[in-house]
């Protein structure tokens, strides 16, 4: 079967071919929006035209079968138009107000989860995990499913003081936006890699391997054509393992995840913030990671109870102070919480004023 003729460097198709007519006409002329329910909103243009959005959750991993189903729904209710959000939700773009309720009804029937708009939890940013990445130290999709089953109502109905952005990174490469999330999970190793000395010489470039270590923990052992890791210096980043397969960082029984909190991306009210360490380690407990889910729920609900309206998690913590965060959540403070990395200087307390 002959293949069609390939083209190169054409880039993506131009977006305007995919815009519903009402959007095309009112492009750049939107005046305001209203959140109608946790899963629906309307945007109103200067001239009064309206576009309705119905948002449904997605597991991000979508089979072509599911995509086809979404296509069918969009044809039925949205003249075939739809989009995805930057957090991987599905947005049905409804031009005809009358079609909203039928769409919602069919979505309900087909067990779609509608919600995520406004001051609540939206979809969880996450990446490949054991599904597809060699670097993964946990499974991202698995944790997301386990936690969202538990936090379900915060997506579909319950209000929070403000948006709470969750994320899961399956290794310290952090392909999601974990480093600036309200509450996030990042998988971490806790022990130095093991080395299959016999294969290092065959499969790896020794200088590259030595150079890959950010803490200079690796030195060559030319005699045995391998390398040696100084365990004291290793901070388990896995960089060496990426360049040299016989170095193995995976230790299933010692690997797990850390929980970080208080990050933020928007510039509203306060500057964007990095997430900071809340819990340095919890074991991988597939399939449902119960301790991880509990820990996240505890943090979320402590926030929900104590924060003021419009306060993001990080804004709330900064107002009350981290010492109060640890007290209110009951999370134990450990040596690992104290920064000893490149930028420890600015995180240690340089003031006589703090809470007991």
């Amino acid at each position, binding site marked *: 079967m002959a293949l069609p003729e390939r083209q190169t460097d054409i880039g*993506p198709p131009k977006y305007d071919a995919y815009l519903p007519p009402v959007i095309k006409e009112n492009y750049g002329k939107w005046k305001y929006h209203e959140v109608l329910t946790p899963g629906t909103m309307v945007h109103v243009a200067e001239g009064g035209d309206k576009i309705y959005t119905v948002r449904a959750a997605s597991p991000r991993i979508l089979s072509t079968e599911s995509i086809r189903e979404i296509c069918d729904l969009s044809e039925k209710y949205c003249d075939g138009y739809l989009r995805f959000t930057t957090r991987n939700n599905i947005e049905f773009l409804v031009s005809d107000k009358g079609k909203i309720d039928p769409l919602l009804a069919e979505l309900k029937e087909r067990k779609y989860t509608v919600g995520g708009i406004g001051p609540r939890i939206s979809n969880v940013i996450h990446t490949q995990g054991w599904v597809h990445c060699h670097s993964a*130290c946990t499974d991202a999709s698995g944790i997301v*499913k386990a936690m969202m089953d538990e936090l379900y109502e915060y997506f579909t109905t319950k209000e929070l003081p403000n948006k709470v952005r969750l994320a899961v990174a399956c290794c310290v490469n952090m392909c999601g936006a974990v480093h600036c999330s309200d509450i996030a999970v990042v998988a971490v190793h806790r022990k130095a890699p093991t080395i299959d000395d016999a294969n290092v010489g065959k499969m790896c470039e020794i200088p590259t391997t030595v150079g890959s270590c950010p803490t200079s923990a690796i030195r060559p052992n030319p005699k045995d054509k391998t390398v040696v890791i100084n365990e004291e210096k290793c901070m388990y980043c896995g960089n060496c393992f990426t360049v040299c397969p016989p170095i193995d960082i995976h230790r299933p029984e010692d690997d797990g995840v850390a929980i970080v909190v208080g990050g933020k991306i928007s510039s509203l009210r306060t500057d964007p913030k990095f997430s900071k360490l809340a819990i340095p380690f919890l074991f991988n407990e597939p399939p449902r990671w119960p301790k991880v889910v509990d820990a996240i729920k505890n943090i979320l609900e402590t926030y929900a109870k104590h924060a003021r309206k419009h306060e993001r998690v990080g804004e709330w913590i900064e107002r009350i102070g981290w010492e109060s965060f640890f007290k209110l959540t009951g999370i134990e403070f450990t040596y690992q919480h104290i920064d000893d990395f490149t930028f420890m200087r600015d995180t240690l307390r340089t003031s006589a004023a703090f809470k007991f």
Partner: protein
Amino acid sequence: MGKYETPMLDELEKGPWPSFVTELKKATKVSPMADDELGQLEKSFQTKRGYWKHGGIVGVLGYGGGVIGRYSSIPDEFPGVAHFHTVRINQTSGFFYTAEALRMICDIWDKYGSGLTNMHGSTGDLVLLGTTTENLEAIFAEYSSRGWDLGSSGSAMRTPSCCVGMGRCEWACIDTMDFTYHITQHFQDEMHRPAYPYKFKIKTAGCACDCVAAIARADLSIIGTWKDKIRIDQAEVKNYADKGMDIQGEIIDLCPTECMVYDGGEIKINDVECNRCMHCIAKMTKALRPGLDKGATILVGAKAPIVVGSLLSWVLIPFIKMDPPYEEITEKIEAIIEWWDDTAKPRERIGELIEVKGMRPLLEAADIPPVPQQVKEPRKDPFFFWAESDFDK
């Protein structure tokens, strides 16, 4: 029942949140690869570790990226995923699709791949999850002949992405979707033939809400803003009050610059002091709107934590106009990238390079003057450099 028993994964089909396991199972109807994916994943759940190997370099003719090579480390056990590469398809600006387009994408993918996708990848690409080396050329021919190109990977310009912006948002100060289309087309060669020191990402958000997280995960973050006054509709202010909004508590008291007053009737803003954080506008969208002299703030440097800790992007150009044909901004971006490309060591992101060299060489190379907006605060230490050129003044 599928090819393998998957008791642990089956557990994750329970509960109300949409299940990725269900998706994996659905795909098994399309391709046996999905079966082995499922089997290997169950094994990962049982043994708490992944079974993927480092990717050898695979790709399509004439391109250096767009495909991530992936191989099972236990192919004998799971032959269907012995090769299981991902194909990155460049998404549309703003992730808008029609049913027709998506179906076409599915049809081809069912033919050559696992039937699994990520809608979308973290960078922005439409990710097709799992195919074999021999199918790559066919996949590319099928998609490209229909107007869809590969996204990016490796040490290249990465697939730019953006928020929905003017497509469906009243706060968009710049046309994020059009600009993203422009810049993606502009950098086609740099996207497809990796020749940079490392990856370079561009993300564009229409305002300070930053709905695409540009400031946290793009080497070049473009964020819309305005220079003049916030537009106020006092009648709508009154409406909010009538509907019971605590304007003092929710808006005025949370304004970070204390530049607003509310006398129970009207809101007044001292716009010179406003830092355009978007809080008041976001919470009172009917009453307050961004000004009319619009443009963008350009920031550089964000990245993930490896090796010396994460970076958020730093303000480089406080304000620049962003109107088509985008000449000035495109020139600036080229100058910025050129400086990095010429100066960085391999695997050095631009943020890391700036940390090593300081801001000055970049400012000089891109002809951007030093201004206080670039810093949160001036330096603390008394150790600063002087160039000969500073003495001429």
